[in-house]
């Protein structure tokens, strides 16, 4: 039992970090494909060794801490994003029994960990002592905190339907029907909130390279920047796997493939949607983003919660 536990932890870490690195290559290739280009195609088969080259380059870059920065916090911030996202993966059920920590409050743990990710942006932007970084950090903080509100509310739909906070339990409850059908609105809200939570395009307002240089990580270089980078791709993977777990039946699928494969395939589809979004969406203005969140998505998620609860009560009676 003990040995199997370590295997799961090691395997999950190994697969996740490699996925995050591979996503860098995948994203560049897919963006290129959708823009009628080739993308990196020189190093290795289909250019996949570009990941290795990029990583080596990042390691050899000067790891510069600006003299005006708050050194301790500056070093601490990039670690937070990776750590919090990896912690959130602890509760994700990759397959039947393949989960690091099968907590009975899995959904809450996920929300808590993704909230902790805000600290990385705020601290990174604050410690950089740079106006662009600070602006990016402020935007990031308000964006992520306000979108977390109805991310949590949207998550309550599957929780009400399945009657458990345990993610494996939620997957098992979807045997009859995936929650995408009763929870279509909740899925859309969760997906949009997830994009904002990972501050990916079109909601990459904390970075907004056309306005804020590179936003909260303007002053970061070398492997510290790499940590933010990896953290972003891990975030995409996390949100995609949460979408799959909560709305698309997790590891459930026809029996000719093992559950883990189904999970990976479904997650992969949503990662592709994230990349497609980046290829096709313009970035909204900051006030448009906040308005959209509070005036449209927030009431919608409350309505969704109300409706789901009412229907659930009606059926149970």
């Amino acid at each position, binding site marked *: 039992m003990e040995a199997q536990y370590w295997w799961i932890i090691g395997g999950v870490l190994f697969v996740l970090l490699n996925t995050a690195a591979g996503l860098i290559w995948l994203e560049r290739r897919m963006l290129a494909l*959708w823009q009628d280009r080739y993308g990196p195609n020189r190093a290795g088969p289909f250019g996949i060794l570009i990941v290795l080259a990029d990583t080596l380059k990042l390691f050899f870059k000067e790891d510069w801490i600006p003299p005006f920065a708050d050194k301790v916090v500056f070093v601490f911030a990039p670690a937070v994003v990776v750590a919090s996202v990896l912690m959130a993966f602890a509760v994700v059920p990759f397959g039947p029994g393949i989960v690091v920590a099968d907590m009975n409050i899995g959904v809450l743990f996920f929300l808590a960990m993704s909230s902790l990710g805000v600290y990385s942006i705020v601290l990174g932007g604050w410690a950089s002592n740079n106006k662009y970084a600070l602006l990016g950090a402020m935007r990031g903080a308000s964006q992520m905190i306000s979108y977390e509100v109805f991310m949590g509310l949207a998550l309550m739909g599957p929780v009400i339907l399945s009657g458990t906070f345990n993610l494996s339990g939620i997957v098992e409850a979807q045997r009859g029907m995936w929650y995408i059908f009763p929870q279509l609105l909740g899925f859309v809200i969760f997906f949009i909130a997830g994009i904002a939570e990972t501050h990916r395009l079109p909601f990459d307002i904390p970075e907004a390279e056309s306005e804020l240089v590179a936003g909260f990580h303007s002053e970061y270089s070398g492997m510290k920047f790499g940590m933010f980078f990896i953290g972003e791709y891990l975030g995409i993977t996390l949100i995609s796997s949460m979408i799959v777990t909560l709305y698309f039946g997790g590891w459930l699928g026809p029996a000719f493939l093992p559950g883990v494969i189904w999970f990976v395939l479904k997650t992969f589809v949503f990662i592709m949607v994230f990349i497609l979004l980046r290829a096709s969406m313009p970035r909204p203005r900051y006030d448009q983003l906040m308005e959209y969140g509070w005036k449209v998505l927030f009431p919608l998620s409350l309505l969704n919660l109300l409706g789901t609860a009412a229907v659930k009560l009606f059926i149970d009676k």
Partner: protein
Amino acid sequence: MFSLLRSMWLVFLHMFHKRETYQYPEEKAPLPARWRGRIALTRDPDGGERCVGCYLCAAACPVDCISLQAAEAPDGRRYPGFFRINFSRCIFCGFCEEACPTYAIQLLPDFEMAEYDRQNLVYEKEDLLINSQGKYPGYNYYRVAGMAIAGKDKGEARHEEPPVNVRSLLP
């Protein structure tokens, strides 16, 4: 909202479009015939140098990258003693080509001139001279100009009449 979904769909359809990229080192982009690339010194149909060392190219050059020294052969032809173009300065504007009265200096459709050592970008006359007439085949300066050289006196050039003896016109 629907316009966003539509644009996502349209971008997705680009998956099946042809890619615009030229895979450069293997697949070269077609260059136009008038592409202003590497500068060369051309020869006339008889294989002689066209350049007469008039310095007009060096004067026209906005970045002063051409330097040359005129010399004269025993048969009366002028030629550049040395001719040097510093391609690390050259901006490929083509003014030298426009200034040249003998069509000697010409810009070719070739841009692959990269070097690891900057000094290698300084081309000497033997690097610049090509065994071709370039864009003006059949043109020979000394055959159309009224300049006397060995083997061709005044009045013997193409479309040229013999010089008039002005004293014979006296009343």
